[in-house]
């Protein structure tokens, strides 16, 4: 009797582990959350894209819910998501850009060609602020609340559906 029970335990255990591992196969590894979620926006000091003499730091991102978009002229998806970002700015959402691994010249060219939804752009040519944000490719978008805490992270291209279904509700939630 015990022997039969033991023999039954083997296939049950096997199926259990197989199901557990099979579930893992369906997880998209690029869907993971940012490591900075619910943490304060990292400290930084940088100039702005338009004015190399103007210095900004992390206090730029406190006081109001802000969407921070990491972009670069070299990044094709950044161009495609610009209409969505302009729409967000039209919805009275404060937008701040991080011009990531770019040159001033190319960055400004980009803004004049594709529009400028940003109140200000932080100039990050060596990607050091991007590094502290855990950015590993542009575009990436962070929602920072009025206390300067990161509340939402969107990796990659922002589609019109993303604006409606994810970003606008998140902005409302943290306002």
């Amino acid at each position: 009797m015990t022997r039969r029970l033991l023999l039954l335990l083997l296939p049950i255990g096997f199926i259990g582990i197989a199901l557990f591992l099979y579930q893992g196969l369906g997880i998209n590894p690029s869907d993971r959350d940012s490591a900075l979620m619910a943490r304060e926006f990292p400290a930084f000091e940088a100039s702005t894209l338009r004015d190399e003499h103007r210095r900004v730091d992390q206090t730029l991102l406190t006081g109001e819910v802000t969407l921070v978009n990491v972009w670069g002229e070299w990044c094709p998806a950044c161009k495609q998501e610009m209409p969505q970002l302009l729409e967000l700015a039209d919805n009275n959402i404060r937008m701040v850009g991080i011009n990531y691994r770019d040159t001033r010249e190319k960055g400004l060219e980009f803004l004049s060609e594709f529009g400028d939804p940003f109140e200000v752009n932080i100039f990050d040519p060596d990607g050091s602020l991007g590094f502290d944000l855990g950015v590993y490719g542009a575009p990436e978008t962070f929602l920072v609340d009025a206390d300067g805490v990161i509340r939402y992270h969107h990796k990659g291209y922002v589609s019109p559906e993303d604006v409606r279904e994810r970003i606008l509700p998140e902005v409302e939630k943290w306002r």
Partner: protein
Amino acid sequence: MALIRTFSAAFMLLFAVSAIAGGIEVREFDDPVMEKRYRDLTASMRCPLCENQAIDDSDAPISGDMRERVYLLLQDGQSDIEIIDHMVQRFGDYILYNPRLENRTYLLWGLPIGLIFVGVLVVILMVRARRNASAKALSAEERARLDALINRERSS
């Protein structure tokens, strides 16, 4: 002896060159211990962008940045644990090929050991059950002989 040493040095140089080929920069170290730490650290971190390449093996821009940061932190005198923490703070546990032992990874680390334990237990119980069963089972002939012996004992 000197010949062997020359040969092995040449061989190692060859190995080093082949290992860093493919767009990945060469870094000079005065201290071989630090060089080893650099190699181990960059081999143990996963590139966040390319999903299954260590940063020492990937030419993604972010991997280059991460190698540079590891190098700078090593020069800065930080310990391996501090450097790993520095990276995990920014890029998450995802980048560790060997996840750290903590509350939510006990199952991960414990499962193989647990399974071996359960397997051994099952084998022991099965062997024991089989042994008991074979001791119990007597063939009809054996039983008849046993009965005959018992009866002879009683009748005498």
